[in-house]
Structures are given as C-alpha cells and as structure tokens.
C-alpha cells in the first residue's frame, strides 16, 4: 500500500473523529491499523507478522489479511470502515487466514455518522489455523437517523485447537436495518465464542443468524445474542448450534428486553447427532425485570435511568 495523500489523511482523521473515544488508536508504531472510506484506503500501518493486501473496487474494497505462522500480534489491530456522506454503498470483501499458532485481536469500527441511505455489506471468509486465535470485535457507530443497512455475512473455519471469538456491537445511534449472518465450522478441540449486542430503536429491523457446527471431538461453542428493543423496533434471532462429535459442548443464550411497541422473536435451534455431545440453550424475551427495576428505583433512580442501567448491564 502506498503512502496516503494529504487529502486521504484528512478524510481518515475525520472518519476517526466520528468514532469519538474509539478513534485514538493510530498513535504508536506498534499498533497496526487500516482506514477505509467508501472504496478508498485512506490510512494504513502494519506490524511484523501481519500482512494486508487491499484492492479498491468500484463500490468498496477487497482485503486479504494474513497472519504468519506463530505470529503474535501483541496489540489489537484496528480496522475502520465508514462513509462520511449521507448516501452510498460500501462493500467489504475480506479474506482472513490466521496460520498455525498465530494470534491477533482485531477491532473493527464501522462509522456512518451522517447516514441517511447507506448500505454497508461485508462478505468475509476466515480460516483460523491449528492452535491459532483470531478475535474480531466489530463496533458500529451510526447517526441518529438510522439510515444504514448493515449486511455482515461471514463464513469461518476453525481448525484443530484453534479459537475464534467474535463480538458485534451496535449500541450507539439507530441501527437501521441489520442482517447479520455468521456461520462457523469447528474442528476438534477448537473454541467458538460469538456475541451480538444490539440496541434497536425507532423502526429498526434486525435479523441475527448465528450458526455454529461442532464437527470435531471436544469442540466447544457459546452463542450469545443480547438485544434491547424500544419504540417500534423489530428483531428476529436465529441461533443454531449443531454437535456431531464426541464431547462437543455448546450453549446458546438469547436474551431480549422489549419495550414500547417493539417486537422480538427468538428461534434457538439445537441439533445433536452424537450421544456424547451436549448442547444447551436458553432464551428469554420480556420487559425489564420488575425486581431489578424496583431495586434500582429504591436507590433513587427514576424508571428510565433504572431501565438504562439494566440494559447497560445486559449489553455490557
């Protein structure tokens, strides 16, 4: 990747500024980062053991992220995707390969501060090598209008003894439309941890599809979806966990707090096809727990403040 122009640096700065407290990551030579505005790379810095190649497409980028065998990236790698204009399409094609025994924790910040009609699509394939750990934390920061369609679709293969952890968070701003689709295949003794934390407001429409397949002996997985819905927001959550190998263990946890006219639907699917595998699930949808509410109100918080604190805990 060539050095960014002065104009690109300015765009990157503006993009990072929209992240507020989360935008201060580019200081330090030991921190890898990549900033993409629309279809343009406006900033990048790499560290040893991490290789990133990017092609700019008409409507986004295609990126190849490679972690060398045994590479341990000490500090989180920061990716910033976003668009400053009110309308447009940003498509991210991402191919990740974490080689054997490598480690990286990636923090992706997706920012659309002025969105009125933005579509952000991500299609990713991730291979986590034997004994490797790849963590991907995706935080969305949207504007107040909610004019964003977010479509992240990811396919992951975690090889023997590998660990894959992903967190998707949209707590600030209006979600708009989210169609989240992750599917992960887990080999023997691998670990999957998948978490989605979302607050839906206004007329947000949210669809979460989390799927894990425990194909190898001793593979483990936890799928969590925690949502708080207000106003006229709508969410449907599909958590699917299959286990087909001995000593595979998994748990599905879906919790949703519903207020106002919001509607939530949770469909946990658990499929076990080996006698020595074990998968559990729990799903709870309801209003804020009255005892929690009364406890906080008996400390002097009004109902709204108490509700916010309870939701903060659930999504924290």
């Amino acid at each position, binding site marked *: 990747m060539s050095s960014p122009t002065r104009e690109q640096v300015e765009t990157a700065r503006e993009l990072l500024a929209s992240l507020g407290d989360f935008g201060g990551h580019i200081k330090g030579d030991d921190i890898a980062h990549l900033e993409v505005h629309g279809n343009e790379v406006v900033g990048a810095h790499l560290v040893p053991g991490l290789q990133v190649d990017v092609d700019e497409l008409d409507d986004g980028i295609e990126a190849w992220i490679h972690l060398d065998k045994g590479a341990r990236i000490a500090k989180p790698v920061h990716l910033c995707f976003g668009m400053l204009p009110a309308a447009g399409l940003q498509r991210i094609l991402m191919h990740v390969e974490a080689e054997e025994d490598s480690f990286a924790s990636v923090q992706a910040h997706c920012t659309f501060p002025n969105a009125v009609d933005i579509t952000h699509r991500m299609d990713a394939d991730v291979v986590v090598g034997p004994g490797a750990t790849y963590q991907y934390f995706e935080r969305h920061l949207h504007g107040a209008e909610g004019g964003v369609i977010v479509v992240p679709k990811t396919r992951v293969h975690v090889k023997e003894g590998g660990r894959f952890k992903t967190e998707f968070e949209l707590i600030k701003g209006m979600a708009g439309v989210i169609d989240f689709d992750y599917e992960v295949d887990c080999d023997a003794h691998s670990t999957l941890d998948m978490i989605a934390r979302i607050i839906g407001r206004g007329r947000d429409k949210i669809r979460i599809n989390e799927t894990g397949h425990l194909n190898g002996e001793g593979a483990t997985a936890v799928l969590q979806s925690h949502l708080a819905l207000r106003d006229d927001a709508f969410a449907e959550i599909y958590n699917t966990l299959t286990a087909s190998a001995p000593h595979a263990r998994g748990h599905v946890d879906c919790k949703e707090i519903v207020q106002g006219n919001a509607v939530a639907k949770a469909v946990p699917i658990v499929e076990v096809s080996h006698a020595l595998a074990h998968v559990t699930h729990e799903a709870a949808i309801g209003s804020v727990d009255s005892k929690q509410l009364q406890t906080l109100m008996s400390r002097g918080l009004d109902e709204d403040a108490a509700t916010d604190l309870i939701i903060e805990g*659930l999504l924290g």
Partner: protein
Amino acid sequence: MGVLELRDVTLELGGRRILNGLTVDFWEGHVHALVGPNGAGKSTLAGAIMGLPDYRHLSGEILLDGEPIQDLPVDERARRGITLAWQEPARFEGLRVDRFILAGARERSAATVERVLGRVGLDPEKYATRAVDKTLSGGERKRVELASILAMEPRLVLMDEPDSGIDVEALTRIFDALADFKERGATVIMITHSQEVLKHAEHAFLLCDGRIIDKGAVGRIDDYFGDNCLSCGHTNVPTRNEMAGVAE
C-alpha cells in the same frame, strides 16, 4: 411523633386483607425489629413503606416527618431517604458491582466503592468489577446490596430478613453495617425470625393478622413470640387476649 408513622393502614392483595388497620410509629435513629409468624404481613409492611407497585393501593396514611408519602412512587420515596434491602436481592446480568453501588450513591467515586465494599467484608480489588449476577453467591449478593445502601446514606433502611441465606462471617458484616447506620443516625426497620438479629434491635413489634398486637422491649416480645406464637394453633387470627396486649 416518630420519623415514620403509619395510621390505620389497610391493604388487600388478591382479595385477602394483609394489613389490617395497622398503626405504628418508628423512631428516628433507632433500630426496630418486626417479628411475627409467616404471613403476618411483615414483608408487605416493608413493601408498603417503600411504595412497591404491588403494595400501593392501600387506605390510611404513611407519614415521613409528618408529610404523607403514600401516594409517592418508589424512587421519590428513595430520594427522601427510604430504601429497602430485599430478603433475596435481585441479580443483574452483566451489571458491574461498582456501577450498581454508585447508581444511588451520595458520593459517586471509586473511593466510595472501596469504602463500602470493605465495610461489608468484600475485597474491592476482587469484587468491584464483577457482575451482580449468578456468579455471586446469595451471601455475596446480600453484602453487595448492603454496600449499595451504605453508599446511598439513607435516612431509613428497611431490611427484610437480613440473615437469611448467609453464613456467620456475612452476618457479622451485616451487623457492622447496622452499626454504621445507627452511628449515622439512620432509622432501621428489620424483619426477622432470628434471635441473633433481634439482639441488635432496640424495639420490637409483634405482627399478627396484619396488625401490631404487641410492642416494647426486645426480650419481652421475643419471649412472648417464642412462648405463644410458635405453638399457636391459629394462623394470623389474633385472639381477644392477644389484641388486649396492644399498646397504642
């Protein structure tokens, strides 16, 4: 005149009269104990004083410093200095202990968290960032709740069975907290079945059938409860003789 007065308070739940024309005064800076058989109305009385939604539709008056508060919601009563420690404290998934403590604290600082956790015998280093959820034992949650109340510095604390479900060490810490409340001049109303807890009260009130049927020195009320109520054949229906013991 007490800091908190209940005047002819009657409350029905599910067609049953739980509080039955109850009249009582609680004195500022004193520790009071409510004793009585199961179903006598002790927890309901605490809920009615706190203003919990299920206990709001009552007749009669609840006066704080002579001002009626029976129409005020829970949070407004709390802002006037009343709070409640539940028999079984709520769990809050994901909510950190320090955030919970500071939610209603008078001084919102890390020093407050450290001080109140230390006071209930929980190491702030270990507990401040934990969640108030099922990973804490019942006794730990009870202590965390008490820590949150210490941070609030209330004027009047309702404690519903402070000794239930906890070990001896935790009970000692709860008595320490009780001493703190008293030292600061707070009024405490404890619901208890425990003689150990009763020792820390200055006045006792015996409830039966939603009424105060006796009140006075802790030892005398405890003796009466032990001699008469535990072996009593009726369920919360005071006899004429018991009612004769009521000293208004």
